[in-house]
């Protein structure tokens, strides 16, 4: 932890978070903090619990045990109206962009402003143009979501996520389904926005190129536990180093490098590939 972090209150605090669905434990004692202005990447293979973790942090689901604090509020202790107020203070970029298909791009961005502020139509119109300009999508203001590309949808989703000037931005698989160039453009946009707006960012991804491009700190999940929580440089050291013989480090190394052989492959063979596949297909990822 840096000196700067020592002096700051975390914007997100996850303490010993456990989530079970029936007999299946998806998260098993996850603990970490996210500090103001930080870009934290949460990564891990399919079925490791990263999307479930994101849903806990944004208050969509409650933990079986443990605590999640968001912007100083314990999510288990606040009621629905308080949670609604809290939701206005963060924005989310969904995997598919999640634009409302019955509205134009501009109307999508305007929606939270129309619903949550008393601003007049002209002011909202100006703000929509500013937000779209920030994601370089002003030309698409009057287009319907069906008329724009996947990358443009993500940009539009990002413009909508920043419409209310959030304090935290969450990104769910921001590079999924994009070609490498568009993916790199979205990464750059995320970095620029996080720095320009001075917000914290939490990114859930398994795209390693994207993760290394944007992260200040990285958290690797495995089987519902935090395997490693460290600055990006330490993960880079593992990725670029040789196998150590330490199973945990070698497992992280294999994941970061995308190698076909290593502890992850060995574990799948030991536990039975079909079993592993079925657990992944369970969709708790």
């Amino acid at each position: 932890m840096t000196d700067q972090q020592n002096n700051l209150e975390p914007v997100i605090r996850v303490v010993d978070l456990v989530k079970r669905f029936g007999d299946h434990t998806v998260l098993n004692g996850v603990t970490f903090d996210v500090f103001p202005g930080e870009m934290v990447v949460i990564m891990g293979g399919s079925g490791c619990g990263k999307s479930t973790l994101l849903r806990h942090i944004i208050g969509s689901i409650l933990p079986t045990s443990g605590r999640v604090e968001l912007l100083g509020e314990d999510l288990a202790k606040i009621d629905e109206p308080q949670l609604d107020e809290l939701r206005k203070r963060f924005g989310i970029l969904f995997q598919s962009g999640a634009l409302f298909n019955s509205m134009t791009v501009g109307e999508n961005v305007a929606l939270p402003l129309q619903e949550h502020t008393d601003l007049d139509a002209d002011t909202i119109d100006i703000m929509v143009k500013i937000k779209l300009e920030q994601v370089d999508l002003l030309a698409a203001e009057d287009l319907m979501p069906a008329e724009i590309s996947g990358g443009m949808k993500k940009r539009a989703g990002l413009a909508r996520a920043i419409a209310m000037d959030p304090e935290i931005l969450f990104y769910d698989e921001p590079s999924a389904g994009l070609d490498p160039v568009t993916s790199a453009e979205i990464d750059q946009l995320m970095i620029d926005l996080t720095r320009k707006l001075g917000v914290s960012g939490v990114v859930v991804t398994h795209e390693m190129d994207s993760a290394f491009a944007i992260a200040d700190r990285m958290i690797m999940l495995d089987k519902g536990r935090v395997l490693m929580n460290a600055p990006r440089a330490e993960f880079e050291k593992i990725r670029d180093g040789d196998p150590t013989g330490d199973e945990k480090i070698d497992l992280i190394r294999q994941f970061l490098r995308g190698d076909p052989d290593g502890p992850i492959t060995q574990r799948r063979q030991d536990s039975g590939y079909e079993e592993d596949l079925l657990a992944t297909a369970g969709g708790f990822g």
Partner: protein
Amino acid sequence: MTMAERQNNIIESLGLRAMGLCEYLGGLTLLLGATAVWTVRSLARPRWRDIHSLSEQVVRVGIRSVGIVALVQGFIGAILALQLVPTLEQYGQESQVAAIIGIGGFRMLGPIFTAVVLSGFAGASIAAELGTMVVAEEIEALEAMSLPPVRFLVVPRVLATFIVMLLLTTFADLMIALGGYLVSRLALGPAVYLEYWQNMRDTLEGSDYVTGLVQGGVFGVLLGLIACFEGLKVKGGAQGVGKATTMTVVNSIVAIVLAACVCTIVFYLFKL
């Protein structure tokens, strides 16, 4: 498998089905409650977006169904006339066919068949639309922006099916009467059609129309609610959306018939 094990399995299976039914009815009741609360709030403070959204749904649900309702109800009137006249002729009462078509059509067949048609047209389409929104994370996005999906999506759709059912029930009544008249005029002779409209006017009372209309409204709320409920609980992509549309039609028809039964008992008890 021993007899005891087989019995246990049957009991377990029945128990699971009963629990599933309770869960379904509970979910539907909660959605009804939330819809009622948000409807009252929206009416207390109407916004341009809500009015626009409601009118959009009314047009979408209603306009698409007008033609098929006219066709189905017109034929029902015609079938009733053709089925009834031979029997009524035996008693020299064929002129009373208009009275029977009027009462049967206005009180029951109009609202029921309109609701069944609407569940296939509008109900399935609402479930598919909301289900697709679930799959595309749009519902989650609404919640994440503190915009309640019930207010934005369910209220306008349930109100639309309610309003459309009221309008279409009235339209269906007219079509049934007209269908009966046309077939009488074309095939059944002057004894049936000469005093057709006069007989219908003499027999029908205000309560015949109103009870049919009340049922139409109840069916409208039910099928709108079931369609939204099925759509919002979609899981598993396109397959889930397909299942939701099917279940919407099946469950709506069951709910409509049950509701018709309850309404009829109530009307009977209150002599309406």
